[in-house]
């Protein structure tokens, strides 16, 4: 893998040192979890002993895993579906129109990122217990949407920015009226942003921990919360196989993201 970046010159060793260090840091825990899930011993330890798939076969009949995984899928799906209209409308409003108090609005809409998650979670808990939303799974999904919505607005916003207004004008001068223009011209050109935002919302929803932990009950338990509780009490390699399932989900999501949007898009200026 020859580097063609001639002009990096003298700082190349420094850069390579940092990049390699980062790669080790990024991959070490994932790799060790992956390897541990095939161990024959009944306790997680390094190095793993032998090779077996028994933890995966056990996983397939582990009731708490299946139940909480389904709950997580449900919550993440709900979160994603709701986030699309919210994100699309907000991104269009912010990027296409001159708004009064635009700066205040931006800061307000960044609250999900600036309020510490523990405070968001407990605030939501107070609201949910008042309006009776505790105990079901969809409110967890709603909460995941609330705390991650900036990702959706960024994703769609980037597309609204690069949308050529002439396309919409052309459609309208050819006789399409506003609703048709929106459905057949605007929305399709926002698709890459919607897909990338939706994927992020889904995966982040599937793995979210702090807010979920505050809001879940035994019935609406999600997988990251269940996994966390088990980590505290058990050393079983079964947990490593649960984690490997998540790693595989992450790999698939990254492949999809690359296929539909292109990872390189994330290097571009929003």
């Amino acid at each position, binding site marked *: *893998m020859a580097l063609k970046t001639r002009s*990096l010159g*003298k700082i190349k060793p420094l*850069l390579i040192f*940092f990049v390699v260090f*980062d790669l080790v*840091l990024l991959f*070490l*825990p*994932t790799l*060790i*979890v992956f390897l541990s899930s095939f161990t024959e011993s009944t306790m997680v*330890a*390094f190095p793993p002993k032998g090779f077996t798939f028994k933890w995966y076969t056990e996983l397939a009949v582990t009731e708490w895993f299946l139940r909480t995984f389904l709950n997580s899928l449900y919550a993440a799906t709900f979160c994603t579906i709701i986030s699309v209209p919210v994100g699309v*409308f*907000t991104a269009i409003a*912010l990027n296409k129109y001159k708004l009064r108090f635009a700066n205040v609005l*931006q800061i307000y*809409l*960044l*609250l*999900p990122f*600036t*309020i*510490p*998650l*523990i*405070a*968001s979670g407990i*605030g*939501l808990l*107070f609201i949910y217990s008042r309006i009776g939303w505790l105990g079901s799974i969809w409110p967890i999904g709603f909460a995941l949407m*609330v*705390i991650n*919505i900036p990702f959706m*607005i960024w994703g769609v*916003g980037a597309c609204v*920015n690069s949308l050529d207004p002439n396309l919409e004008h052309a459609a309208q001068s050819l006789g399409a*009226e506003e*609703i048709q223009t929106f*459905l057949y011209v605007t929305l399709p050109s926002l698709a890459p942003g919607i897909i990338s935002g939706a994927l992020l919302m889904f*995966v*982040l929803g599937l793995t979210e*921990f*702090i807010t979920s*932990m505050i809001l879940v009950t035994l019935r609406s338990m999600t997988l*990251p919360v269940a996994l*966390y509780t088990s*980590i*505290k009490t058990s050393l079983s390699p079964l947990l490593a196989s649960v*984690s490997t399932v*998540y*790693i595989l989900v992450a790999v698939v*999501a*990254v492949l999809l*993201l*690359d296929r539909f949007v292109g*990872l390189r898009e994330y*290097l571009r200026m*929003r």
Partner: protein
Amino acid sequence: MASIEWKAIDLLLFLKKFIPKTFYGKIAYFLLLPGIVTVGFLAVGLVYLGSYSIFKFDPYHMVVYTLTSENYVLLLTNPAYLTIFVRTLKISLIASASSIVLGFFYAYFTVRTRSSILQKILLTSLFVPFFTGDVIRVYGWLIVLGKNGFVSYVSKMIWGHGAELIFTETAVVIGLTQVLLPLAVLMIAPAITAIRRDLEFAAMNLGANEFRTLVYVVVPLSKPGLIAAFVTTFTIGVTAFAEPDILGGGRADFAANVVFKFMFNAGAYPQAAAFCILITLVASLVVFVVLKRIGLGTMMYTRTGR
């Protein structure tokens, strides 16, 4: 299918007639409604936290609805809570700073490398851990740093005795830095992309070496990304729960762990709320100072003003 589609559109057009003309001038504000309501949940949540934080806590009645400042006084005068507060800020600042330094080089290399395969590998390596979630990564670090873990094994091979990193602040810093690293890179990279390569060449033509170019040209110009990276990683670090709990083993508790104990072990809602408000205030203060002086950086939702 097509006819259903046309009918649906006709219905929409029919409904549209009932919308008053004045609506069109304000359409942007109507489009904003869902977003405002969504984030409104957090705003109302903050109001709830604020009001609970000034109620009295009583172990028997849980919450007594008389106004008091004793929750704040307790948190700000009890050395145990102060220690936790200071530790939360200290470790999240260290982890945030480390993730930004580590992330800057990663982002710079990823953006500037001309090998598209290498670029894809670096991006994939970034997104896979990011998408794996923090609980799984913390579990990974537990196995890496733990008693019979990878680090201990390697250290036994080299020095003949195990290295015990687990249940220390260092372990929390390592775990947290890794959790924050992908976010830092994703915030910094767009800012580096926006820097024209010519500027770097110009600096070098004028006699700056590569290192000075990096320090005096690239770093200042990637400020919008560095700011956004700082704000996101710091606010996430401040609220860390799993890292201090699992990697710190109760010896390096963060504010979030204490809030959780107040809330669910003692039922002390007012104290939990007061602690939440304090963290939010400190985090917002830091964010506010940064944003006031430097701006939203790559966190901006819009392109205007950049």
